[in-house]
């Protein structure tokens, strides 16, 4: 039941559908993961093609614009290639991966389905800094080199992966980090690097690594007055999990975020009073490929 006194955001247009395709299972155990994914976390399970198909069909009726696949680590799902292939018949798809589980055959398969579609397949690889000294304390020993090998494989196959970094450095160092990372990628043959920088979300593991949200770090009704709510992902996205459809990828562990069993059932306002909503308020649609809002977006 929606709290009428809470700050609420309408769904303006369902533009993006996300799939929690690998649940909370991941081969890494990053210490900033906002849903604490790891090799033993089965809180959310995999989605197979049979579970995804009805949502794809529903998304077409609703005129959805793009699809995202996340986890956990999506490439641990053995059906990920046929899932992406079927999705790419309908629209553009983006996979969020840690880049450490690629094998040659998988990359070739991805290349095949990407070339066979009129729509773009984007691969976003999470690496949290330009060197192992920055990345590995967060994502695990050896994960920098493993992920960079994945990026090289993708680049050699013609992909232009988007390196996604959670910012753990001062704002004033951002240009230096980008220059350093760009040079490192070029040294390894990735000559056209693309980057996306994310803020930390102070839930899950991150609440322990640094701190959780303070009690005053909440969106209030007053804060939404005059605010362009199209900057918030909940005004244009929903996520499908093995436990139903939730508001956004960040809040799947919050019971209030689960809104129904079909997309249609979730086309209603959401109360953005969860602590992590505060970060989206400050930074905009952080999860989608284009970080900045298309202000005033509507149906």
């Amino acid at each position, binding site marked *: 039941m929606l709290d009428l006194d809470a700050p609420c955001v309408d769904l303006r*247009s369902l*533009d993006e559908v996300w799939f929690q395709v690998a649940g909370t299972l991941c081969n890494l155990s990053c210490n900033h993961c906002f849903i604490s994914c790891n090799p033993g976390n089965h809180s959310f399970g995999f989605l197979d093609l049979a579970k995804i198909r009805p949502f794809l069909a529903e*998304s*077409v*009726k*609703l*005129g*959805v*614009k*793009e699809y995202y696949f996340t986890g956990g680590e999506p490439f641990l799902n053995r059906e990920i290639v046929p899932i992406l292939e079927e999705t790419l018949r*309908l*629209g*553009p798809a983006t996979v969020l991966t840690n880049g450490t589980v690629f094998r040659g055959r998988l990359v070739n398969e991805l290349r095949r389905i*990407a070339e066979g579609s*009129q*729509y*773009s*397949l*984007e691969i976003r690889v999470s690496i949290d800094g330009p060197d192992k000294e920055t990345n590995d304390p967060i994502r695990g020993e050896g994960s920098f080199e493993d992920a960079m090998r994945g990026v090289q494989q993708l680049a050699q196959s*013609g*992909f*232009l992966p988007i390196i996604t970094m959670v910012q753990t450095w001062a704002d004033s160092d*951002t*240009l230096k980090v*980008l220059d350093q990372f760009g040079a490192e990628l070029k040294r390894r043959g990735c000559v*056209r690097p*693309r*980057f*996306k*920088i994310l803020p930390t979300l102070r839930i899950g593991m991150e609440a322990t690594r640094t701190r959780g949200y303070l009690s005053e770090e909440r969106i209030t009704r007053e804060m939404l007055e005059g605010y362009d709510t199209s900057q918030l992902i909940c005004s244009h996205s929903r996520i499908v999990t093995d436990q139903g459809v939730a508001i956004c990828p960040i809040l799947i562990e919050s019971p209030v975020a689960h809104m129904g069993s079909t997309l249609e059932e979730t086309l209603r306002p959401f109360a953005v009073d969860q602590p992590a909503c505060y970060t989206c308020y400050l930074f905009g649609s952080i999860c989608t490929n*284009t*970080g*900045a*809002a*298309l*202000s*005033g*977006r*509507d*149906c």
Partner: protein
Amino acid sequence: MSGGSTEAPVALFGGIYSNHWALRAAITDARTRGAKAFYCLGDLGAFGPHPDLVFPILRENNVQTLSGNYDDSIARGLDDCQCGYTDPRDNHFARISYQYTLQKTSPRNREWLAALPGEIRFVMAEKRVLLCHGSPRQRNEFLWESTTPDAFLLKLFRNHDADVILATHTGLKWRRRLSGGQLFANVGVLGRPENDGTTQVGYTLLRSSDEHGLEVEFVPVAYDHEQLAREMRAEGLPAEFIETIESGWWTTCLEVLPSKERSRGKW
């Protein structure tokens, strides 16, 4: 803004980006092809030199013009062009371009921009034609060929009561005919080459068709790009912008390109 019935063909100019040489060449070319009406889908300034030179050309040739995100920003004196870049390098160049254009656009022309409509509609060959800048729902929305599904386009046609939708904003032309006969086209831009290694730019002709009622034809335009480059140099605009005009490859604002479109370019 609504117009009456219009006979084919009509010429559609996408973002001009202060490229007055290309605009003149396109109008001349469209006349030779029998175009009876001219429309500009917005973004008059940006990138190029002497933004005020575009306005008299549009007025003297009765080019009906709608407002792009750049025009909206310049008219209102906003802080940026509303393209939504997040990459620091893209933001750096976008800021240079925007500040130059804002400073060099006269108050009178800014008033003219402020009065432009957000969309233009007319009926042609019994089809309801809707002209917009980014998309019918959002002035600064990028509709790229590789990230715009049929189902999404159908929603736009349904929600905006049109049979033909024509947009610009991305800088890359494309078209798609849907199963219900609706036609979407991005008309491209006159302001800079299409990231294809050639120096030509382009515009679009909308003409009647026996099969579908209306169809679009993309028309390449060669113009004096060397003279434009000289003017850009004289105005102190970034070497990266001039390189694009001279080489045909985009060098800045690449962040927003989806992978398929980005892969076709050099950078």
